């Protein structure tokens, strides 16, 4: 019976099969159980958004249908709102808006957070103190209210909304990145690079950030979820983009007739919940992959 002895002395003739990067990620991801469920949800949402014109060719703003029709009447699977517009159409088109807002806002938050956090962690000293204070400040500030104030003052176009959400969500990413930068700074390979004369910014961009960014990816998923919820809240108080069909605005439109036509407000809320849940679960799955210690040992 041949045995494979793991030795340093004997040079292996054929290198043992190392798991590919994708498999190294995918297997624990599936193990987390929540991750794949979330991914499935998001794929469905994305498909709905992409195929919106196919699912609802008439578009979300098509008037002329019966007003406040219950789900199932007249070919409107999910009913209609107070202006006679099809609910299903608004939901699938709304998916486009929500996903866009979430992704853009989270991207802005990620970029700002990575920059601030990595600079703070790597440079240390008064730069770190200054940036950390700034981060703390933005953490304490009631973000939603700040967003309300800004949007009410400057304008409620969707661009503004995305940018403002991104600019208030970065502190968590910054904290994570700072912690990563702090520990990476002490690693031998970084110190070697410095000894060799590599400039700070180059080390930051080519080594610190790529190596430290992993936990921020999990957090990005949560940021997307938060952005979607914030936008919904903004639309609900009338600050959303009036030209877009967003789930939040649907809830806003339907609130006065909630007792007679519940579907106009409740169904878009379900869409929000499912989508946000999808992002949470994916984020949970990613952190499970990145955190070997948290893995459950089957007894």
């Amino acid at each position, binding site marked *: 019976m041949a045995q494979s002895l793991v030795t340093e002395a004997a040079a292996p003739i054929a290198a043992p099969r190392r798991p590919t990067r994708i498999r190294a990620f995918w297997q624990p991801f599936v193990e987390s159980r929540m991750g794949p469920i979330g991914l499935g949800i998001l794929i469905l949402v994305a498909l709905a958004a992409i195929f919106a014109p196919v699912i609802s060719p008439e578009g979300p703003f098509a008037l002329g249908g019966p007003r406040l029709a219950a789900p199932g009447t007249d070919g409107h699977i999910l009913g209609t709102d107070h202006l006679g517009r099809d609910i299903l159409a608004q939901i699938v088109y709304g998916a486009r808006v929500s996903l866009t807002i979430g992704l853009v806002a989270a991207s802005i938050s990620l970029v700002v957070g990575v920059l601030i956090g990595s600079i703070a962690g790597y440079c240390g000293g008064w730069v770190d103190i200054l940036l950390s204070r700034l981060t*703390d400040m933005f953490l304490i500030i009631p973000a939603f209210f700040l967003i*309300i104030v800004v949007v009410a003052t400057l304008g409620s176009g969707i661009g503004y909304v995305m940018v403002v959400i991104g600019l208030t969500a970065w502190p968590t990413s910054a904290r994570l990145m700072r912690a990563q930068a702090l520990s990476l700074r002490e690693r031998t390979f970084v110190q070697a690079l410095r000894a060799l004369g590599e400039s700070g910014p180059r080390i930051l961009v080519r080594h610190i950030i790529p190596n430290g960014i992993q936990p921020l990816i999990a957090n990005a998923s949560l940021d997307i979820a938060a952005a979607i919820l914030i936008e919904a*809240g903004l639309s609900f108080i009338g600050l959303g983009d009036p030209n877009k069909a967003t789930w939040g605005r649907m809830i806003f439109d339907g609130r006065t007739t909630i007792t007679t036509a519940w579907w106009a407000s409740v169904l878009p*809320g379900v869409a929000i*919940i499912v989508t946000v849940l999808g992002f949470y679960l994916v984020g949970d799955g990613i952190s499970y992959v990145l955190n070997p210690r948290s893995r459950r040992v089957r007894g």
Partner: protein
Amino acid sequence: MGRYISRQLTSIIPTILLSIVINFFLLRAAPGDPARVMAGRDNPTEEQIAAIRAELGLDQPLPVQFWRYVQELAQGNLGQSIAFKQPVFDLIMERMPATLLLTLTSAVIALTVGTLLGAIAAQRAGGPLDSTLSFGNYALFAIPSFWLGLVMIVIFSSKLGWLPTAGMRNVRADYTGWRDTLDVIQHMILPVATLALVQIPIYFRITRASVLQQQREDYVTTFRATGMPQPRVFRRYALRNALLPTVTVFGLGLGFVFTGAALVEIVFAWPGIGRLTLDAVFRRDYPLLLGVYLVLAIAVSIAVLLTDIVYALLDPRIRLR
């Protein structure tokens, strides 16, 4: 301890200053003439606009304007509300108690329930109960507060008729004394339940993670080796250690609940700051809006400071250094 508090203050005070600065610049950054913007939408006359311009000192250099603004703030003058024709400060203070009633009650309930469930889930980590609770927790966290409020109204108020739909009191009846209290409580149930439910996930998550962390600590092994049964180790030692991060989170959680409270107040027509905000937004009543924002920023900062102090009192490693 003293050093710890002063360190916390150096975080809080700049935050408040930052909010003040943001307030100050936001108005002036708006497109168009700030004075005209401040004058509101109800067709202000040129004299009104000129008056506002003088009051804001918009023809003065910026630093002078800012100094004037800060001075006004120090005197508690947040300006005059355009829509309500009353001092902003008075308006806010009038509505504050109603909001505090909702936020504090729901925060305490959420803290209790969330912590309890989180500890239970952590003790059965990896098992079916934990998976169910964790999944349910994510689902709960995904629910928009205002949507939940609407659903509550549909179910409990409209369909079942158990509880009132809106408002803080039954305005037709004129209750006094304990009947009034009972009336308020009855009106409180749905909004508080809504707010509590959306906050529970925060405390569940932090407590579960914290308890799991404590279970891996060395002292747990030490006590188990001494023959102490696991439940006793948890009750007497792990729990106290595990609850510390929850205290910290509570401060930030209060910031979160002020946000949720505003939206829920709107849904339930609760006469608090949330409603005020909505009105301010609709009517572009900038003095009021900026005033509300500033007061909230200060309130949250104070809440964070207080919870940090409580944390320092509970953790001897901070208290005694």
